[in-house]
């Protein structure tokens, strides 16, 4: 007589399986959220010849929808928002300066490459790969922030930096879609650091 050792999964096993599946889905969601989106890796300011310059490294990770839109000829405009606020005790910080930089990333079917264009200055650079284009887009080097003469000496300031996908620059229909679809909402967290002005030379 042959003994049947096979066992049916009990309720406990089913519960464990369901828990694992749920955890897996949540974890996958978190991973997905981490894989796409905008993130400011680092940012800093330096004073050079009476001008404060800003440098930053930003990761641009496009999701599938934005990538589809890009590769179907829709240019993506990213806005770099920079805020400079004076720190005050017992009072809200005082906004001193605000800077907006717009960068357009577009697909060039003729060259089969990508073009990054600074919409403020008109400078543009062509890249053969998306990786190179995003890398170029995320590298901010010595962006003039403010003239040192315009801010107080020996004062603490806070610089805030954020990168967002400018939905207003999307085509109308896509903008309506973006209103309902979070996939077209790409924005980084505010990245803040202190800026301490020194004594005049």
């Amino acid at each position, binding site marked *: 007589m042959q003994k049947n050792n096979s066992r049916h999964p009990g309720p406990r096993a089913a519960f464990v399986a369901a828990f694992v599946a749920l955890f897996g889905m949540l974890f996958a969601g978190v991973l997905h959220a981490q894989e796409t989106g905008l993130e400011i890796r680092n940012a800093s300011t330096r004073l050079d010849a009476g001008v404060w310059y800003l440098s930053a490294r930003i990761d641009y990770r496009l999701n599938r929808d934005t990538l589809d839109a890009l590769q*179907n000829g829709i240019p993506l405009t990213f806005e770099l928002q920079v805020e400079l606020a004076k720190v005050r005790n017992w009072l809200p910080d005082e906004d001193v300066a605000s800077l907006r930089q717009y960068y357009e990333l577009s697909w060039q079917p*003729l060259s089969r490459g990508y073009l990054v264009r600074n919409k403020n200055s008109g400078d543009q650079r*062509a890249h053969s790969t998306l990786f190179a284009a995003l890398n170029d887009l995320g590298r901010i080097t010595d962006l003039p922030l403010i003239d040192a003469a315009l801010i107080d000496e020996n004062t603490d300031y806070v610089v805030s930096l954020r990168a967002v996908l400018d939905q207003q620059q999307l085509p*109308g229909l*896509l*903008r*309506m879609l973006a209103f309902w679809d979070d996939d077209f909402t790409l924005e980084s967290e505010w990245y803040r650091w202190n800026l301490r002005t020194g004594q005049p030379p």
Partner: protein
Amino acid sequence: MGVAALVMLGRYASSPADFGRRHVLILAVNVTAAAALLALMIVNLFHLVRAYRRRAPGARLRARLVGMFVGLTLAPLLVVYFFALQFVNGGIDSWFDSDLEQELSSALRLSRESLDVQATSHLLQTTALAAALGNLDGDALSRALSVLRADAGAEELTVFNPDLRVASSSSGTETLPPSLSEDALKNLGHNQRFVALEPQGNARYQIRTAVVMPGDVPEAGQRYLQAVFPIGDRQGRLADAVQDTYTRYAELRFLRGPLKDNLTVTLSLVLLLSLLSAATGAFYLARRLAAPIESLAAGTEAVAKGDFDTRLPPGAADEVGLLIESFNGMIERLGRAREESRSSQQQLERERANLATILGRLSTGVIAIGADSRIRIANDAAGAILGVDLAARAGAALEEIAELGPLPGQFVDACRPHIAGELREWRGQIVLRTDGARRILNCATSSLPGDGSGAADPGAGDFHAGAIIVFDDVTELLVAQREAAWGEVARRLAHEIKNPLTPIRLAAERIRRRYLPTMAEEDGQILDRSTHTIVQQVEAMRDMVNAFSEYARAPAVTVARVDLSQLVREVAWLYRAQEGQPLVKLALEDGLEIEADAVRVRQLLHNLIRNAQEALEGQSEGVIDIAARSIVDGERTFAEISVRDNGPGIDPEVLARLFEPYVTSKNKGTGLGLAIVKKLVEEHGGTVAAENLPNHGASLVVRLPVRAVIRDAVNESRMTLAENWRERA
């Protein structure tokens, strides 16, 4: 708001860019409009359902109109909606023709290959330039670069040192210091060459090439030559146009789905707004159309409730307005008619009240009988005469009245032939008998004229609306007349008979005195007996005449307070028990005083006791019970004297006329004793009644009012009856 939303939808739906820019506003306006219309429709629907359940006037009509309007709107809208969806989706899909896409791809590929040929050519040219430059350095390199750049037609030629610093550069324009891009470096490290087509903006392109320079300067490492070649303006514009068209086509293709969704949403919103607008409009129209009808219904209801002051507001100059005008006119006429009717009714009520007052004050009985033989009106006197409260039995059939007692029964039996007969007028006398008494009624019936409505019995052959019976109790009048006649007879008899009696007696006595002594004894005895008989009879006749005189005479009444118990005791003492006489028993209430004529009361008592004695004559162990007490009847107090005997009782045939003169069942007496009793009692405003006792014997009961009501009963009775007859006439 709904119309504005529809206009916005229509305006911006044709321009996707505008729609995308303002879609939030458009959506907000449309959703707000839809929500407002929906709320309006729900409120309207709620009110309509409530009115429908309440069965409010016009609610059903409104519901029907709303359903009809919405149904009429919904069907074509749905048809248009589905056809439009089909058309839009099919139209958009038709835009993206595969042939067009293929042609665009081909055009792009052609442009690209054309540029690739140039790029390859420039790459080879760059490689050749790199070989030509060889190991040149310093000023030689600079001069060579300038020359070669001009020869090659390049815009820029740059030699980079291994550390990527510019060794030397020649440029046709003033630009920023050249640099090697990451792409270029990566490709140079991998393929030893780099070529790329770079857009410059404004439909300008350039080809950037870079190669590793073959050098014989090992210590210096590898150097790089980068060249930039411009593309002709015409070729650049053509290529840019192709790329732009392809990009826009790709964009449209990518946005095809959102465009379909957008149009579907737009159409759905249009449908929703149209439906809601239609529904709201349907409610409004239904309300507007039903309002005059509701107003008419409300007015009709108000009129049905008796409100004739309702006036409907004038409607439009159409059929409904005409109807409202007619309604108002009708209500006005109805109001006037009602006022007239009310006035007539009030007049009738007043007349009826007057008639009721007159009937109520009549001592004559009046009964009005309807065609259905039921009593319509009966006054109090009719009920009093018949002993039944007829006024409270209005509506009762004559048969029901007949069962209420012997008097109403005989009355109905006597009257019915004259009511149902063909005679319109009848007058006559009805004699009713009850408990040995007779009631004589003078009665007249008269048929009431009918209106020919057929209410009467068709078998009667003549229409009449009933009959009226007028009757009067003339029993007392007849008795009074009889008594008056007897009084007159008595007075004349007394006068005519009494006068010759004295000469007869004197003559008889003279004959006796003169001839008796002279006559023989035997003759004398005869004369003596004869004259004695004459004198005796004359005396008897005188007594009789005196009795007549006493009956006819009506001396003045002297009223004083009389102790009735004491008076009864005194009179009864005269009849105290003697041998062979009945025993008199007294049961008297002490202190029973009345206001009366003591002489008449004494005579009354004498007559009563004598009547009882005569009834017991010849009977051993006769007993006369005399009682006197006070009783209260209504608001009046009476002294009641009852005289009972245990004799044979009163002959029932005599009982009804016991108190009339010369009515007696005894061998003795004038027959005037009880007639005088009745006369005396009536003079005092009292009553007398006689009845046989259950076992044997009779009872006479006299009631005299404690407070004097002295009157000439006979004369008063005569006058009252005479007045009644005059009223009836």
